[in-house]
């Protein structure tokens, strides 16, 4: 029985956290958010230098849990770059035996892949991507090089750390890795849900931590505002919302890695629950901060915008809860 992080797993999170603290501080986020790029090469290369790109290689000794742990820290740091697409492209290429020529450059991060959710016109980091991994439960999985029938239209994206573009991909472009009926199609779609849940967990934890730190430091009526029971209870509720939900993400990732029969449902539940938590946490964080939280400069807005994205991307909480209800046989 082991259901908490090992030293190695904690070390992965510490390494990603340390790397992003150097490569992606708030000043860099501000500069990026005011620019036109949808990708930041420097922080991407710093993450890839840790070997993150290869986590889902079959012989890595790691799995979706480790990817989710790294993704959580990326969410905490509001990192740029399509980590989720990159991991899934590596997993898909490796499992399909096709697209082998992409495997090494993807695992090393030299080439960049982004995830296209079947049916959605919006794709994060599309202008920087070399490859588009389309995962569609109804149409299967395709890997499409940017040069093959991909049309990209830039939009002013609301999520400033992972800007989306409008993307059209010609039918039949690229290579089909899995048919819709192949179990791997659903598995990849499930993995994407777990990774978004992990990003949401990291973001929700981050804004909770920011709120707690601010409540200890900010003084009104001659004392730290965190001493007032009204705010203390709001902060306790934020923590109560976030911390127990961590285990939901762990379970979903563990179930996927272990191939448990409830893995698809666990992924749906985690996506739905954590995206609710993320939106609640970012809203509560702004309220807990007061005026400073409402400024652009303070930065809470970046996580609020990521919460908006995570919630709607790959399907709403209501959609995944409806799936989970059906999967339970109700």
């Amino acid at each position: 029985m082991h259901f908490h992080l090992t030293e190695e797993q904690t070390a992965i999170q510490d390494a990603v956290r340390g790397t992003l603290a150097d490569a992606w501080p708030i000043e860099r986020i501000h500069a990026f958010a005011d620019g036109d790029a949808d990708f930041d090469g420097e922080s991407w290369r710093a993450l890839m230098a840790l070997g993150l790109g290869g986590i889902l290689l079959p012989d890595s000794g790691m799995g979706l849990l480790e990817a989710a742990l790294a993704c959580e820290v990326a969410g905490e740091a509001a990192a740029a770059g399509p980590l989720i697409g990159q991991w899934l492209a590596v997993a898909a290429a490796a499992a399909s035996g096709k697209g082998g020529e992409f495997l090494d450059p993807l695992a090393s991060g030299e080439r960049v892949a982004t995830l296209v959710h079947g049916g959605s016109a919006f794709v994060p980091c599309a202008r920087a991507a070399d490859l588009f991994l389309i995962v569609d439960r109804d149409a299967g999985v395709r890997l499409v090089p940017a040069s093959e029938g991909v049309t990209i239209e830039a939009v002013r994206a609301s999520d400033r750390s992972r800007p989306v573009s409008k993307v059209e991909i010609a039918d039949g472009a690229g290579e089909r890795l899995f048919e819709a009926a192949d179990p791997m199609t659903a598995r990849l779609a499930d993995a994407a849900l777990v990774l978004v849940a992990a990003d949401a967990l990291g973001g929700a934890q981050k804004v909770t931590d920011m709120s707690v730190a601010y409540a200890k430091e900010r003084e009104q009526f001659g004392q730290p505002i965190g001493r007032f029971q009204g705010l203390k209870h709001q902060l306790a509720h934020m923590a109560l919302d976030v911390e127990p939900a961590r285990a939901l993400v762990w379970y979903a990732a563990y179930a996927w890695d272990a191939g448990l029969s409830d893995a698809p449902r666990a992924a749906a539940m985690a996506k739905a629950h954590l995206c609710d938590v993320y939106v609640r946490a970012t809203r509560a964080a702004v309220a807990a901060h007061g005026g400073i939280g409402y400024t652009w400069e303070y930065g809470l807005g970046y996580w609020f915008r990521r919460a908006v994205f995570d919630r709607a991307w790959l399907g709403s909480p209501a959609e995944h809860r409806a799936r989970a209800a059906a999967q339970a046989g109700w």
Partner: protein
Amino acid sequence: MDLSYGEAAEAFRAEVRAFLSLHWPPPSDMRGTDLRQFIRTFRALAIDQGYLYRAIPKRYGGSEQPVDVIRAQVIREEFARAHAPTEVGGNGVNMTVPTLLEKGTDAQKELFIRKTLEGDYIWGQGYSEPGAGSDLASVRTRGELSADGGKWIINGQKIWTSQGMQATHMFMLVRTEPDAPKHDGITYLLIDLDQPGVTRRPIRQMTGEAGDHTFCEFFFDNAETPVTWQVGERGQGWYVSRTTLKHERASIGGADGLGKQFAKLVELAKEVGRIDDPIVRDRLTQIEGFVLSHRYSSYRIFSCAAAGEDAGAVPLMMKLLLTEIGHDMALLAQDLIGEHGFVEPAGAGGRGNRGPRGPEKWMDQIMGSLGNSIAGGASNIQRNIIGERGLGLPRDLAMSGER
């Protein structure tokens, strides 16, 4: 991560199962005194095997086993599966015994522990008073030494005592040093409830629950207890009592219970023909997100305990999480039962035989969920604990003198 318990635990499980298949259940026609004796013998055998009262020394009737949360879990699972009796439970086992082991005299341990484990002594908790709820250290029930210094004479009132009608004894916080600062003027006393100076009265609850199984209030009118039944130093009772509240916190909760209750809520939605309603399905799965968070967090806490690691702030959150989920379930249940809720359920809130009951039985849970916000540390106190101990926020000025 790995949710299996490992080979050693499975081998142990086989042992426990073999034991249970040999000694439980009793013959189906066994009743009354014979059945009680059978259960007593069964418990004694289970203690000999090291299955029950594992933290308690053998000389006091325990099985004195090394700490092993996995084995303890296997035992709980297998005994539950076999519907076999486990430890007698209650305040005595959960609170009195751990306190005596830590702070009691040898004579007190000899006198009380074995009788408590065997169910002969049932303990009421004498903490809350009408004027001392969350601010427990403000208790006013008085204790004064008799002229010969051999007895404490007790006057005052205690309230919210579980198992009050059955209790044979009480552990209580009594003010013995009225001039000392409030935390330093309290003494922890044990008392025999069978005496003329003690009056008990059941409290009728909003659920309708009354009679033998409800909470009681106790009135003490020159009640007496020997000074040798005082636990710890005079004036140190507040600190003695801290041992016990910790134990109570560890024994509230239980992920399995919550999971079963959720499964019943799904059954209710089916029973009243609402399971295909998309709104009901959404609310159920929304609640289930919290139910599963609670369950997997309990795995996490358990896993940390097994590895001897600190689980951080999440153990501080489990009681409030459970309470909040109970409220959410109550709200959905109330919608699902609809007009069934117009009918008072048979044996409302009570225990014992009450025959088959329809959807109206959920009124027990709907009202009972309110009690969870109060019992065992009120929700606002839980929020303080999470905020102050979990998040490191500064203590409320009004409570900055609290320990």
